[in-house]
């Protein structure tokens, strides 16, 4: 055997392991400890005060989730978003470029943070100009973009993506930072902790491989955030383990693998499913996407966010009211009814 065989052998690594590494970011950072004292001082004078449920921000999130779920939201979902949308009045200006954390909505493990980036008048920041997107500097940043102010380690994944905000002003650009905490660690967005955002240097990236990334703005934009008004609701759908058969098709021929589902948890924006040992191909085919059917007949999908050998973690396409759930539909047609009480 040669090293090349190992390299080639790795090509058939399970899809989930490949995706997990690609989506991973910043599991921990010892650098945070160095900054802890500075952060603590900063926090003392920083803006932790927030105002809640500003209708315009809530309306914006309603549109966002409706588009994401590709359907109209129910009155209950709209009410939930109005109640839980949190406005952060925090702006930092560096070298004439102002970053504003405008608002967020979160449950225990998922958070969507809406960010406005504003250049000096006359500077064009729109997507037409940059073709692709503006991102945080991943190469030169001394600390990770998202962290805990007390410096403690945790695991998360985050993606920063441009969003359509209907703003026609060239020097304004909006982004959505979607953060997903790993529930296996002892932290959640509703634990009252101070979380920090640190964006170092903003770059434009291009789809065209011939075009090099371009520094848009140099600087460091720091924010302290405390998430509040977060739902603690969580429902366990299984009272006892559920035998299940996963079916996949290879060359149009069905093949089967039996597995035991041991837990199905649902929250307002996230979910988790745990099971016995299951081959990767069956795992992805069997459980990558589940459907939550509401009492009014509408449905909301939850897609696999990350997964391991025995569990899959999900993000919902749109927030839900747990009391409005009728059942969770598994791919084979099995219905897991909402537990009574």
């Amino acid at each position: 055997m040669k090293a090349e065989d190992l390299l080639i052998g790795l090509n058939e690594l399970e899809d989930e392991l490949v995706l997990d590494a690609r989506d991973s970011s910043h599991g921990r950072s010892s650098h945070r400890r160095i900054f802890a004292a500075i952060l603590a001082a900063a926090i003392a004078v920083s803006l932790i005060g927030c105002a809640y449920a500003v209708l315009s921000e809530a309306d914006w999130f309603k549109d966002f989730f409706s588009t994401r779920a590709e359907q109209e939201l129910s009155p209950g979902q709209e009410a939930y978003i109005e109640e839980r949308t949190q406005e952060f009045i925090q702006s930092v200006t560096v070298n004439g470029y102002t970053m504003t954390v405008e608002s967020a909505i979160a449950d225990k493990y998922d958070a969507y943070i809406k960010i406005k980036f504003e250049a000096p008048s006359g500077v064009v920041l729109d997507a037409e100009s940059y073709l692709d997107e503006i991102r945080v500097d991943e190469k030169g940043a001394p600390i990770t973009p998202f962290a805990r102010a007390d410096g403690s380690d945790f695991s998360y994944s985050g993606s920063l993506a441009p969003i359509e905000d209907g703003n026609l002003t060239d020097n304004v650009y909006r982004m959505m930072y979607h953060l997903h905490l790993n529930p296996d660690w002892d932290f959640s967005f509703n634990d009252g902790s101070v979380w920090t955002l640190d964006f170092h240097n903003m770059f434009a990236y291009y789809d065209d491989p011939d075009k090099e990334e371009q520094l848009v703005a140099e600087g460091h934009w720091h924010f302290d955030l405390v998430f509040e008004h977060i739902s603690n609701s969580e429902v366990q759908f299984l009272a006892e383990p559920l035998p299940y058969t996963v079916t996949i098709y290879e060359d149009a021929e069905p093949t089967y693998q039996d597995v035991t589902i041991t837990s199905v948890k649902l929250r307002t924006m996230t979910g988790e499913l745990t099971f016995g040992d299951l081959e990767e191909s069956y795992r992805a085919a069997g459980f990558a996407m589940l459907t939550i059917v509401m009492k009014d007949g509408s449905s909301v999908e939850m897609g696999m966010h990350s997964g391991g050998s025995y569990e899959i973690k999900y993000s919902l396409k749109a927030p839900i009211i747990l009391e409005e759930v009728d059942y969770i539909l598994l791919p084979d047609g099995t219905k897991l009814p909402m537990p009574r009480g």
Partner: protein
Amino acid sequence: MEDSRIIELYFQRSEDAIRETEAKYGSYCFSIARNILTDKEDAREAVNDTYMACWNAIPPHKPNIFSAFLGKITRRISINRYQAGRALKRGGGEVTLALEELAGCIPSHWDVEQEMAAAELTNLLNRFVRALPETERRVFVLRYWYLDPVEKIAKRFGFSQSKVKSMLFRVRNRLRAELEKEGIFV
């Protein structure tokens, strides 16, 4: 566009499938190819070959996770091109360094009789990687699947380069022990 919709386009034999694949995953595939192939034009051709291979594979194949499916094709095609390029002395890039590092995983008394079947090796590697602690697992996959440079991985995780190197060194030693433990070499 949702992955499921793109896959539908392949099944409909619509050329929009390739356009949408390129729009959504072009940069992702290019970054994998570019890590393996030093020449930008080679990398671009590898990505084009990826689209063609994808077009030929779907249907009948229906990938469960489209991005991973594309990534694997890109990686395989790029490594093939790397091997061909090396024969012409045009090879290089991260794959050369990765191969040097992985060479340390091969038990020293390995011989032809101890060759593993490809499927057996794949199973062993999957078991091994899956069992690694989260951070080591991600660092290992980024280095030896995506062929990301150590410097980039270090920045991504907020580690020093030496920390990443020592982490990889420990994981490679464990992989070597795992290969030996398989009973192929004692």
